[in-house]
């Protein structure tokens, strides 16, 4: 256990970090532990998420990627037995601080889930819902505008423009996932968390979503969990490797896939386990 935390400290001081230090840190986590009941799922995670970059979380199944992602918008609060300790700062403010409301936090840090989960409502209502509850639009035209631009940014507008009142659940899997991204965008978040957003999609839909992620990077900070090395390499600038609840290594994606610092990262990337 001891050498693990030393390894983490090493990671924090890797040269890769200093290379891009001009970049502002959007979310920083320090010494984050997560327990499900008595079972510890994450061990003192120190990870910085940089603004307007795509950070990929990789690692074998069950290593705690989703758990960490869900810490960032306090989604773990909804699980009774889950307990999170440590410090997670969004723009320097601890998200567990009483001055940050969880509703506000989730409006700023949106989330896209593994399985597309549009509401059983119309396409329009799916996108408009977040804007409505946060009071982002005062008039109907404003709301229409938000829905349209969100769908536009999610690259879905062309496909659904003339059937906005049809149920969102009637779309194809890839369209549903892009609808979920549009829904997240409509709230104007600063960060978008994505938990294996393409794992339920076919290759063409996956390509579309990946393209979308690359475009979204200019306006949003993105953290994406993926089990596909190629995807991490294609869409992300930074990659973090988890293993058994430990953050093994975090590095620039280029470096990670060519010359990783850690033995376990090398093994995982080359497909020796995972």
């Amino acid at each position, binding site marked *: 256990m001891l050498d693990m935390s030393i390894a983490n400290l090493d990671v924090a001081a890797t040269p890769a970090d200093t290379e891009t230090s001009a970049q502002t840190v959007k979310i920083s986590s320090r010494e984050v532990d997560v327990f499900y009941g008595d079972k510890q799922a994450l061990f003192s995670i120190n990870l910085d998420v940089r603004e307007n970059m795509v950070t990929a979380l990789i690692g074998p199944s069950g290593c705690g990627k989703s758990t960490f992602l869900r810490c960032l918008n306090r989604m773990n609060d*909804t699980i009774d037995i889950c307990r999170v300790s440590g410090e997670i700062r969004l723009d320097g403010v601890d998200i567990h601080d009483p001055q940050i409301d969880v509703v506000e936090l*989730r409006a700023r840090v949106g989330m896209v889930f593994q399985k597309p989960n549009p509401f059983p409502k119309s396409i329009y209502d799916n996108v408009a819902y977040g804007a409505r509850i946060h009071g982002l639009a005062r008039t109907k035209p404003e709301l229409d505008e938000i829905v349209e631009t969100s769908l536009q940014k999610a690259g879905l507008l062309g496909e659904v423009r003339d059937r906005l009142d049809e149920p969102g659940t*009637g779309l194809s899997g890839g369209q549903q996932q892009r609808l979920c991204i549009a829904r997240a965008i409509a709230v104007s978040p600063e960060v978008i968390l994505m938990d294996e957003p393409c794992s339920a999609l076919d290759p063409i839909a996956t390509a579309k979503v990946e393209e979308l992620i690359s475009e979204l990077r200019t306006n949003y900070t993105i953290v994406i969990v993926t089990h596909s090395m190629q995807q991490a390499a294609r869409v992300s600038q930074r990659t973090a490797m988890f293993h058994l609840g430990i953050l093994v290594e975090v590095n620039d994606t280029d470096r990670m896939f060519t010359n990783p610092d850690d033995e376990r990262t090398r093994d995982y990337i080359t497909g020796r386990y995972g």
Partner: protein
Amino acid sequence: MTDTVLNSGGIPGRSVHTNDGARGRLARRYTAERRFKWLGAGAVAVAILLLGVLLSTIVVQAVPAFRANYLLLPVDLSEKNVDSARPENADYDAIVRDGLYRLLPGVTSRSEKRALRGIVSSASGFLLQRDVVAGSTLRGGATTVGIPLDDFADLYMKGLLAEKQTVIELAGAPSIAVDGGMALITNAPQILDAITARGAGRAGDDGGIRLSVKDPSFLVETGRLVLKIKTASAARTDATILHTVPMAGSKATQLRIVETPESQRKISDQEVAWLNDLQNRGAIESRWSELFLFSGASREPEIAGIWGAVVGSLLTLIVTLALAFPVGVGAAVYLEEFAPKNRWTQLIEVNINNLAAVPSIVFGLLGLAVFLNWFNLPRSAPVVGGFVLALMTLPTIIIAARASLRAVPLSVREAALGIGASRAQTVLHHVLPLAMPGIMTGTIIGMAQALGETAPLLMIGMVAFIVDIPGGFTDPATVLPVQIFMWADFPEPAFRHKTAGAILVLLAFLVLMNALAVILRRRFERRW
């Protein structure tokens, strides 16, 4: 080890799945499957059969309750009888009486007149008054009104009393000599044949046969008279005059044998003669019994109606629904979505489950003790009945609502929470609408239970005999199942049909409620 298993079929080259042993096992498996299928189908068939038998007996019993026979009575509503300024003060019983005497002018003696008044409902005067005052019957002259027959007369007209009758044309030319109230019939040998064929009567002193009330009745009908035979011999037949037909027509003389002896039926020979005549003259009309469907309870079977109980049930169920649905759904939402999982909520959960198993009469006792004795709420009132039934249905609704809330996929909650919906918004906007169809199914089951409940309502006095249609939630009322319970207890045969009719109305109520629920559910049902 593996080898022995593989070779157990004995024939080399055949695998474990194709050897004889495997084939046998497969055949046995299919046999078992077929047996299982037939058992299931048999169970369904038995259930359908029993349900069919039950329903058809009820329907057969109930049909007579929905129709009633009315006497078309000529009445005089001119100024002489009815003061147009104060029509409610007229003597309507007398008007009905006069109409009856006018219809059957041959009736003169006091006892016959009393019997004649008995063929129409004793409430006729009251009903006529109601119609005249309400203006639905024209005043100011002679007119014809429909008056409900007395319950036994009505049953006779429906063929449910003294229904076994034989009519024989008397051949030849029987001669009838009338002398006062008596008649002498000669030249009608068929009469004696009919009597002896039935072994009726006892031998008299003169060798003839003397008939009594314990024998079938032998009535001779001509176009002008109805006679009842007292003694008969080969030479002569003596009879009394039962009825003189006022508008004599020419008609062949016939012998009518009412097979059930007069002492064993609820309708006399005289009434039979009158009713048959009235029917021949077209003065009796069978109509839909609006009195049964749209009037309140009564001790008189012919005017006893179901409407009071229907309204009582409706009012009670409105209170039950208004109380049990929001409270039940609210409790379920709190327990399922907000409550921390600790010992207290666990205790509450166990208690709710136990509450669903408490016998309903206990809720009645509770209602009696709390609502009536403590809060001094009115007895027999739908509001109290509604409270009691709401208590009874609450656990059903809570359990069903919790189950359907739990069945809403986690992904929907996550989707809403993930874009910053509060917990309450998540539940109200997404989870509850998706759970609504299930909640509604549970609610309907609860309400159906409440609709059919009798025992707890007996405890709070809803068994009282209430004639008026309840006009509000605090008026004394009764409900359909209690009405059925009371009618089933009354001795008059007409109430047997009313009971079955009321059961049908209750079932119709239930079907209507279910249909409403299906429509509402359609509205809420969504795909996800």
